[in-house]
């Protein structure tokens, strides 16, 4: 156990350069790339005096190394800048939108796992047969679907068939549960508010199916190829030779080892989830971080855009840390 603790400390230390690189990439992308952000936002026709004023206001006319230090030291103090549009701290804004994204992500992930893993196991089991081919074509087609288009098609279906499922927003007016965590499903469960719970779940239905389906395509492919690898190992052959029922071999023997690499891939899947959430949220008018980002872009709110992208960079660093630690816990072969 001591070794594990050392590993975790080491891994946390290693996270520092990674986050620093991520933040540097964000910084250079948003500052240095086109020359100057103000003209990138408002076009070249902006009067020079106005441009100068905005540059001064956003601290962008200092030498770039000073800006870089300002940016990093600001982050250390938890200062993500002040939104130009709402005049509120960007971090406060982010935290009002983030629970919605988190809730959508959790439900989508559940749907993706529930659909994706059994389909992958089934495809591997039927390898080379027509049903395997069908599963793979399905996985490719789902992955090839533009996520926003899938969402709109589902909305269209609901509208044409007159199914009473909400196609936008997070909750009906006046049905919001008491704010505890910001996750409406959890909050309404905690307060025992059945009315809110049903309403929140019905709003979650279409967006999480959309995002979940797209992710399930990836999970199916990963599970299938990992299952194929484990099904070829000697211990599976041995189990089969002993006459153990095929489904038992699949689930009890092969699946357990096949699922480990899938956990490793969760980091990549998470990047896909975050990117997918941006599109899904905008399709369903879901008040999450992705919708906030697009609103900021539409309103040319430079400090807020920078804050949100920075926040995403921090999430990415944090998730890769968690994935590595979970892996070390799950797989005793990982050296630390």
């Amino acid at each position, binding site marked *: 156990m001591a070794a594990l603790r050392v590993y975790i400390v080491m891994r946390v230390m290693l996270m520092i*350069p*990674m986050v620093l*690189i*991520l933040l540097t*990439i*964000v910084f250079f*992308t*948003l500052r240095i*790339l*086109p020359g100057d*952000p103000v003209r*990138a*936002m408002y*076009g070249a026709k902006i009067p020079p005096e106005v441009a100068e004023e905005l540059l001064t206001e956003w601290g962008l006319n200092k030498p770039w190394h000073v800006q870089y230090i300002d940016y990093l030291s600001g982050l250390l103090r938890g200062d993500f800048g002040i939104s130009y549009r709402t005049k509120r701290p960007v971090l406060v804004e982010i935290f009002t939108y983030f629970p919605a994204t988190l809730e959508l992500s959790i439900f989508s992930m559940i749907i993706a796992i529930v659909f994706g893993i059994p389909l992958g196991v089934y495809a591997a089991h039927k*390898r*080379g047969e027509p049903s395997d*081919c069908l599963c*793979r074509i399905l996985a*490719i*087609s789902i*992955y*090839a*679907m*533009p*996520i*926003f*288009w899938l969402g*709109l*098609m589902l*909305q*269209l279906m609901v*509208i*044409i068939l007159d199914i009473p499922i909400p196609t936008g927003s997070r909750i009906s007016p006046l049905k919001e549960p008491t704010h505890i965590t910001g996750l409406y499903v959890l909050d309404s469960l905690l307060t025992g508010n059945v009315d809110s719970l049903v309403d929140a779940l019905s709003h979650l239905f279409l967006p999480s199916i959309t995002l979940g389906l797209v992710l399930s395509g990836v999970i199916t492919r990963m599970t299938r190829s990992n299952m*194929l690898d484990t099904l*070829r190992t000697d211990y599976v052959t041995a189990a089969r030779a002993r006459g153990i029922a095929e489904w038992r071999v699949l689930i009890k023997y092969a699946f357990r080892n096949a699922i480990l690499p899938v956990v490793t891939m969760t*980091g990549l899947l998470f*990047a*896909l989830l*975050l*990117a*997918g959430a*941006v*599109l899904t949220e*905008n*399709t369903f008018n879901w008040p999450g971080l992705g919708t906030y*980002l*697009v609103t900021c*872009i*539409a309103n040319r709110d430079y400090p807020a*855009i920078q804050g949100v*992208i920075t926040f*995403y*960079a921090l999430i*990415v660093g944090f998730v*890769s840390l968690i994935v590595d630690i979970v892996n070390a816990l799950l797989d005793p072969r990982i050296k630390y």
Partner: protein
Amino acid sequence: MKVKSERPMKQFKGAILQSISRLDFLSSIKGRAEWYMMVIGMSILVLFLGIAVFAPYISPHDPNAMVDKPFLPPNSKHIMGTNQLGQDVFSRFVWGSRTSLLIAGLSTIIAFVIGVPLGLLSGFVGGKLDRVLSMIMDAIYAFPGLILAIAVATMLGPGILNVAVSLAVVYAPTYFRVIRNQTLSVREQLYVEAAKALGADKMTIMSYYIFPNVIPSVVVISSLCIADAILTAAGLSFIGVGISPEIPDWGYDVSNGQRFLTYRAWWIITFPGLGILFTVIGFSLLGESLDEILNPKLRER
């Protein structure tokens, strides 16, 4: 003594031809599932490429002109109907294929030009350079592609080239990683050592001995990356940081049509979406089948 061909271009061409001739075994997989996947993928791509190339002859109307009443459902005059501005949806669909493939192709070329030489250099030289480059590329790779592309595209402003650049930033690390890892294994090969022993300089080894041997893996990667790039580009247009509205584009058209869902104007968003879907399926099928064919570990299965 320096080993360098008197006609380097000829030797270079020879190396490329040699790596293409490795695709010989294509005939050996005829009739297998991968073969059908490849044939279907190729057919879809040829179809869309044809539409894109011959767009001016295929499209019946100017994609940006008001040609009829708005919101006409598909009919004999407009097989895909008209949109809210009375533009012919089919003409926009045809021209949209051009935009989509152009962006995908451009971004692939840029990502290739950035990723491949850096990957070769990093893998071959190793040491500190390799560590620093790998760390930067890994960080970009870990970042959600669409969000990074949004950031770059917002800063660069609208335009086909700008969108292509923002996609290239996202996909260059993929090329880098594949090429670097391949280089690491190829540089240990005997023929590389032989070239070194003969006194070939580093540039010669990299371009004549290593490059031709790592390039086949790029075929698979680029096919899968293009598929992804088309989706990301569509996402950028949907969000409104893509190309300017006067250029017909599938992603933009879907985004435009979503306001009219409640009027049940399904044709405005369905057709451009199908365009994206099928092009991406085409590239994915091609990439997947090539992957299974070129990857010997999978071939055993």
